[in-house]
């Protein structure tokens, strides 16, 4: 019972998602066609990867709003490296490393220099984006080698690879967060950094590791996104940070850190990602998408407030839950 209670938020978001799917299935049955659902999954796979890492960042009580710009840098880097003839496995490694170094820079500034993450990553958001614009002159990377698109596997196989890779990573990290000592450290630091320090955990190290990991996953997401097209844009990832933060929050992770799960984030990504296409299928003006997304975020916040108040009552009057 206790366990179910802890997952209340995830369950209510999941319920909202099921209701949405049922309603759309009734209004527009064609929405549930296999091809459409696959496109939906494909479009949201990169957002999912970024949101997974964003969950960790928010769990430790920080935020990273530079992911959109990191994404753009990694995308262009992937294009250039591919053009230089780098083999795909090496390319994969390089792009992840480029992402990880951008993340590590944030990690050093936030973890060890203890600068506020919202300012550090705001600076990076602007800096990476403009550095990229200056370097590329806004030009897209074209004439990519044939083995770049879909990793040379063809559309059918390539699509499944991307979706499956994202889901496998979700499963792996979800397991790691619950089963690795490092996962425990993430929750402890987000819940109370000073208490974690007194228990022998180094919050600076955890923060550095999480930001670096964030960058690495952004790199991977950028590559998986880039291979879907025959040219590589220099303005990818605009607004990605907002999508990721919104999905994490809708998925029930406390913005103050310490509480939340990747399952919740997965449902959050699915819910926010489905609304746009669902509106199109239902014949509603898609301009409503953002407004509805905003309303969902407010709803999530509202249910946090209600649940949060329950918790406040408990701490103010410990005797209510105290066992005699």
């Amino acid at each position: 019972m206790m366990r179910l209670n802890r997952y209340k938020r995830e369950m209510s978001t999941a319920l909202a998602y099921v209701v949405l799917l049922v309603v759309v299935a009734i209004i527009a049955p064609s929405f549930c066609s296999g091809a459409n659902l696959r496109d939906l999954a494909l479009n949201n796979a990169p957002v999912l990867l970024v949101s997974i890492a964003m969950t960790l960042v928010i769990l430790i009580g920080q935020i990273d709003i530079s992911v959109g710009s990191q994404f753009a840098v990694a995308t262009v880097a992937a294009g250039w490296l591919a053009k230089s003839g780098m083999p795909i496995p090496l390319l994969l490694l390089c792009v992840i490393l480029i992402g990880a170094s951008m993340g590590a820079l944030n990690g050093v500034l936030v973890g060890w220099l203890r600068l506020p993450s919202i300012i550090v990553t705001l600076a990076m958001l602007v800096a990476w984006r403009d550095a990229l614009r200056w370097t590329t002159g806004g030009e897209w990377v074209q004439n990519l080698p044939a083995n770049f698109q879909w990793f040379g596997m063809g559309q059918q196989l390539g699509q499944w690879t991307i979706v499956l890779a994202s889901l496998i990573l979700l499963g792996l990290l979800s397991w790691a967060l619950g089963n690795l000592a490092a996962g425990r450290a993430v929750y402890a630091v987000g819940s109370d950094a000073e208490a974690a320090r007194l228990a022998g955990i180094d919050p600076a190290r955890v923060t550095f590791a999480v930001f670096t990991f964030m960058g690495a996953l952004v790199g991977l997401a950028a590559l998986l996104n880039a291979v879907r097209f025959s040219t590589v844009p220099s303005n990818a990832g605009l607004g990605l940070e907002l999508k990721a933060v919104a999905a994490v929050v809708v998925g029930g992770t406390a913005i103050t850190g310490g509480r939340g799960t990747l399952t919740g984030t997965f449902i959050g990504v699915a819910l926010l990602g489905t609304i746009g296409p669902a509106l199109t299928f239902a014949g509603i003006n898609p301009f409503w998408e953002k407004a509805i997304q905003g309303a969902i975020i407010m709803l999530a916040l509202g249910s946090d407030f209600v649940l949060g108040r329950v918790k406040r009552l408990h701490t103010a009057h410990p005797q209510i839950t105290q066992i005699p």
Partner: protein
Amino acid sequence: MSESASLLRAVDIDKSYAGVHALRRASFELRAGEVHALIGENGAGKSTLIKIMTGAVVPDSGAIEFNGKPITQNSPRLAKQLGIAAIYQQPALFPELSVAENMAIGLEERAIWSRVNWGERRRRATDLLARVGARVDPDAEAGDLTMPQQQLVEIARALGADAKVLIMDEPTASLSDEDTRNLFSVIEQLRDRGVGIIYISHRLEELPLIAGRVTVLRDGRTIDTRAMSEVNRQQLIQLMVGRELSAVFPKRAVPLGDVVLELRRLGCDASGIHDVNLSVRAGEIVGLAGLVGAGRTELARMIFGITPADRGEILLREEEIRIESAPQAIQSGIAYVPEDRRRHGVILDLAISANITLASLDRLARFGTMDFRHEKQVAADYTRKLGIKTPSIFAPVATLSGGNQQKVALSRWLVTKPSLLILDEPTQGIDVAAKAEVHELMMELAAQGVAILMISSELPEILGMSDRIAVMCKGTIVATLDRAEATQQNILALALGH
């Protein structure tokens, strides 16, 4: 000083906080034009009484009278209107605002959209500062002032608010002798103008210089009010000590082993600790006594590597080591159960099991993977051994009572099998039954050969549990007493200094 009618009176004040009885029918009377000292040990109830007078805390029962009229519904706002002002040890100015602006806050009662008259504001600040003899530029930023200057600004502000009662909480704690003399002359001027001053201080030797009368609190009760000229320091200490023994302590003689921890001339500038010499043997409980602010917690945090020492030596089992971080201290076999359990001792959101194993994750994980069966076993084991009352070891710690939370905090460190256990106020704010259990547990650990360093502000606990007692004052250990020679009186006399 003339005998005048009472200005502010507190009668039979009672106040409990979640099980802790802070004031028990305490009474206090302040006359106009007197400096009245209020003294007592840590936790005697001074702060609570002050907060009730300034309206910050509502008493459970009892009455406050001002100029003979009872105050009902006291609040910070009402107290201010009546002219009751308090100045705390740490000045409460807005550091980014100028002195004049700081003094205007709360003084200028005007609509928020009206224009500020800067000239008038500055003139009045200058005038008030001159009245307390402060040479302070009204345009300076408050944060740039020295501590004594900030205090004078606060006093000037209270004067501007036409204060009739001025409460000063340890105002000289961080002042030099010269600044103290200046402050006293300002206080005397205020007194001669008819302001009633409540003066709280641990510096007993300065009380005869400034106070007319003195009231002693102990265990939330008013023990006595005397004319300052009738009592000497020894008599005051006599009145302050003698807190009731609330429990029988399970102290047993345990054969002592080798020296586990030895500190030689240990010091750290950042935490104001200097020249600490101390040793703790296996099986020994050493009590660390002292007033709040004497540096006991700072010393514990130094030994645990949180604010590493920069001078002196730490010897662990006769080997010199440098402790630079908490993980290193844990590896060396040191455990620290911090004070303020809800903030730092446990992580309220995490399950009991996760809290218990948090300091020994490397032992409970193989290649970084949590061994949940082992964790469950360890958690269940300690939950049973320490009698932690909970329906499930997976319940968040937030759902437990204070005593059970403290047991979780203790368990976390017992899992690490420490050779030195530092306990910081281990029984603060927990009920009598849980207290007795914690004491019994300490005794068992000592019998197993753990060296224990216990910080406590409760003298009966210090006397009841310790083999030896180290007394701290102003950042260093001033004396170490054997169990046989220690009394509440000589400990307090040492803790008060001079």
